[in-house]
């Protein structure tokens, strides 16, 4: 089913593959802006400021002024962490990524699109689970820039 070659061609045709990166908060605040997952109540959709250490105890260090990047979904679809059920995920927490590193697949209307990091750094957090539905603009990964 997951014929990656086809998918990229198709998705490019639809102009769907694009990654939007969230710039750090202009006020230099330590918070990272996040959108909540699609299934949540829409009233909760507005971006929520979260201090990174509070989000996940595993976040390394206590440096509060790290500016994380987000890899956000350029489309509506289903998130797949690995190229197929028997393969390891494209990336894991701690994986280094570059602009062209494929980080996940998104499926919509039976078309699979490879999503690239479009930024450099280390995967700090994976924000959605394998098989989860994602909406446009939803944050998928937090990346700690080099």
């Amino acid at each position: 089913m997951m014929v990656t070659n086809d998918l990229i061609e198709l998705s490019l045709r639809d102009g769907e593959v694009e990654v939007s990166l969230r710039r750090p908060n202009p006020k230099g605040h330590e918070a990272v802006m996040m959108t909540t997952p699609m299934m949540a109540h829409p009233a909760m959709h507005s971006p929520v400021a979260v201090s990174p250490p509070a989000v996940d105890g595993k976040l390394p260090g206590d440096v509060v002024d790290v500016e994380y990047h987000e890899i956000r979904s350029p489309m509506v679809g289903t998130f797949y962490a690995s190229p197929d059920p028997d393969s390891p995920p494209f990336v894991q927490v701690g994986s280094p990524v570059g602009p062209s590193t494929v980080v996940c697949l998104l499926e919509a209307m039976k078309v699979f699109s490879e999503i690239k990091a479009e930024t450099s750094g280390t995967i700090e957090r994976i924000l959605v689970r394998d098989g989860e539905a994602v909406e446009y603009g939803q944050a998928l990964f937090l990346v700690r820039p080099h």
Partner: protein
Amino acid sequence: MFRRILIANRGEIALRILRACQELNVETVCVFSEEDRGAEYLRLADKAVCIGGPAPRESYLKSDRLIAAAEVTGADAIHPGYGFLAENGQFAEKCRACNIEFIGPSVEAMKLLGDKASARVIAKKNKVPTVPGSDGVLEDDNETITIADQIGFPVIIKASAGGGGRGMRIVHDKTDLLAALKQAKQEADGAFNSRDVYIERFIDRPRHVEVQIIADQHGHIVHLGERDCTLQRRYQKLVEESPSPALDHRTRENLCAAAVKLCKAAKYYSAGTVEFLVDTKSRFYFIEVNTRIQVEHPVTEMVTGIDLIKTQIRVAAGEKLDFDQRAVRPHGHAIECRINAEDPNERFRPCAGVVEKFRPPGGVGVRVDSYGHDGCRVSPRYDSLLAKVIVHQPTRPEAIRTMQRCLKEFVIEPLKTTLPLLRRVIAHPDFHDGTIDTGFIERTF
């Protein structure tokens, strides 16, 4: 019945459809652009999905995203509302190919009746009167003279590629025809890079009257009477009412029968509207079909007591109409005014911003369809329609009086709206007398 409907629209019509779904016990998915994030009506949906950026082509017009949103949320039908993709046959086809019902007519009917030229052919075939005309591009001067003679003067020359008045010439006398033809062709060439023109009978001071149709997939079709939408500003409807104050009983019967005949011929189902021009001698001419629900549908709901959106959803789910033509008994008089966020002093440029104070009118026989509330945002990117005020009273004078009261009561601050214009229009003696035509607002205000 459907389990879950995705509403592929925004603003007042999204809210309208949402309410209909809830009353049918159908779950709802609302989509929204980043611009509409946080809109209050989204709170009422069972799910809300962001589908793209603020520009319509990045969100509400992006058919694949809408279908993907339906798939990931498990919606089994999409209601397109009006505007955006509501009359897009390809979108309807794609939805159904993905096993998601498009709530609207069949693709075939959409194509047959949605295209003006093809609808005109069907109308002629079914003896539904159309505006007499050249039925295509004029080839040479002799042909033009012959056709103009057949049509009868006055005639109007129009650019085939045109619109909005450019390349148009009204000709009252045969002797002026060829000179006007030459001018029109030059103007068309300059404006649209095409010299193609055609001619039609010129209908002086027409009224715009349309017939609401509802039909199921089992061959049952009924009309729900007419709406008079003569009060327009630059081809945008501003005030609609039912029944039309200008039709006698016989014309009304004939008009409605013609609309039914046309839709039947196209095997049309779902809600649809057949639009006509009516001249000063009560002759009517078919102009086009809108293969969707219309902004002004509440006018018909008020006089018939039939919920058009609920009925549209039921027939899309395969249900039979649970009423026949005899059961449709319009009573009283309904009027709708469209409150747009526009500045009349700035040539009706859409106004955007935050509505700080929103106090809609209420009372007996008053309905306000709107997404407005204190603190709501009006975006410059979408249609400027902020609210529809619909009133229903036993008689037309009472309906006018109630509308006047409502327009006075309605407070929207600080955005500029069409409220002040509407107050003047509704108070105008020509509107009371029902003697207006489609050019009334431009001439009078």
